[in-house]
């Protein structure tokens, strides 16, 4: 049904986006919590930096990644010298690029749902002998799960559709960094491949739809578990 080329692009896409999500999940939750629950000097600046990938041209992000994470970059040279790790032109690099582009979406969604968690429930948990850490993992985070699911799916979808930063930082290498969008781009550039391009387009739509439906189903399931919530607190 699918051609080997299509399967390969799909596999790389899922692998890259999944890894991107894994990379940013914990930092994203931590950042969302920091922004939702704390007041500190430079908060607006930090908030702005987090949102930068949303408004910057992706090519700029890709370029900055090359500068910082490239073999001779500030962080990249250290990674290469000490861990023998080189990110540009690898699928891990593509995952990093996708993760950074998706980061603001994850943070926004998680932050909103953390802000919606009733601090009075957290206070109640504290009086029941729970430390701050336990309150976070047993009350705050579970109550924010619907937003976390939405954020994760949005981030996954964003990484899936990532093009500009990926092609700049990780290039368009078949079998390594050629994700669905990059493969589609290559086909469009090749005369006589219009049909193949259309097939890839359909595959992209289907993958995006599946992830959206899955997120909706997950979110509804968690909401139903807490059906009605606590009448006493509303």
């Amino acid at each position, binding site marked *: 049904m699918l051609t080997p080329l299509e399967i390969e692009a799909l596999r790389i896409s899922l692998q890259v986006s999944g890894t991107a999500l894994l990379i940013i999940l914990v930092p994203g939750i931590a950042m969302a919590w920091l922004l939702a629950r704390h007041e500190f000097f430079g908060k607006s600046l930090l908030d702005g930096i987090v949102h930068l990938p949303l408004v910057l041209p992706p090519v700029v992000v890709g370029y900055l990644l090359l500068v910082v994470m490239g073999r001779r970059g500030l962080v990249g040279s250290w990674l290469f010298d000490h861990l023998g790790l080189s990110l540009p032109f690898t699928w891990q690099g593509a995952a990093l690029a996708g993760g950074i582009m998706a980061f603001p979406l994850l943070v926004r969604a998680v932050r909103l749902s953390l802000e919606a968690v009733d601090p009075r429930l957290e206070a109640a948990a504290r009086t029941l002998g729970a430390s701050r850490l336990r309150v976070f993992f*047993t009350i705050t985070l579970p109550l924010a799960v619907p937003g976390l699911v939405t954020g994760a799916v949005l981030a996954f979808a964003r990484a899936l559709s990532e093009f500009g930063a990926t092609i700049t930082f990780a290039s368009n290498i078949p079998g390594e960094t050629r994700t669905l969008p990059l493969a589609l781009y290559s086909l469009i550039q090749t005369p006589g491949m219009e049909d193949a391009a259309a097939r890839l387009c359909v595959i992209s739509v289907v993958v995006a739809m599946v992830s959206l439906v899955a997120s909706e189903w997950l979110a509804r399931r968690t909401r139903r578990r*807490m059906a009605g919530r*606590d*009448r006493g607190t509303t």
Partner: protein
Amino acid sequence: MLEMCLKHRQGGFDVDVDITTPGSGVTALFGHSGSGKTTLLRMLAGLDRPDQGRVVLNERTFVDTGRGIFIPPHQRRLGVVFQEARLFPHYRVRSNLTYARRITRGEAFDRIVSLLGIEALLDRMPGALSGGEARRVAIGRALLAEPDMLLMDEPLTGLDGARKQELLDYILRLTREIDLPILFVSHDPEELMAVAEQLVVLDQGHVVASDRLETLLSRGDMTPWLGGFEASSLLKAQVCSHDHHYHATQLILGDGQRLTLPLLDRPEGSVLRVRVRRREVAIALSSQRDSSVRNQLEAVVSAITPGAPGTLEVTLALGEQSLSSRITLEAGEALGLKPGMTVIALIRSVSLAG
């Protein structure tokens, strides 16, 4: 012993109190909204930090700003029941109850669950509970944390009449059957008449008075603060006998006199408090044999103060206890009442206070 000596400023509102109450029984913080009672409860629980002062419960110092001590809320071992139930919506009732991880099963668990009548709710989600049920679960959750003191912040507010009485009955059972000091915050005199032993009256962040409820009720100068208590007296009494034929219970007061009430569901020998409204007490110079008022107590007039125009507030001593009566000025003069006189208090109706 609970000591709270605090100074705190919060948005133009000053709290400045120095309270010492016995660390046992039910102590009530009474005051109108904005009197600072919830602020005090939050500081005791560790949810707010006072600008200055000390909080000590039974020799455990929670806060001492002078020595830089602040014990965080989760290490204070206080059970807090908030005005809203604050159940965790993502856990079943059972997991809410065991959240504190102290008593999670066994006899102690079963006892508290049955005391609050929540056995049938254990597998439900909090969203499926009624307001009264949710609050009972919240009380259970606090009790199962094995607290050194139970703090209740207006636990009955927002419930309708019948639900309120039901929950109040559960709370009263609790005070009888569990030996745990309780701090009860409320602005409702009815509730406090039922539960409080010790009363702290607060107004605009300051303590107006702090004493035993009966003592405060018998103080004439407290009327502006305790007017809502419908000017009642509380008498401590012991169940003497039950009479099923007349459907009545005989109580014996500290001075040996007897009171008859409609049949009570309390074992003989148990100590309870009854409430007598001031306007239900008439005064006679001799006992009335041909009267339908059966509760006639010999008492000594201890004070007479003018009340509303045309009325007198008469304070009667019944041994160690005191009883208030409101009579007309005309009646007072006709009877020639004077402090020190022995009279008969005719009590038209008396009810159980808790």
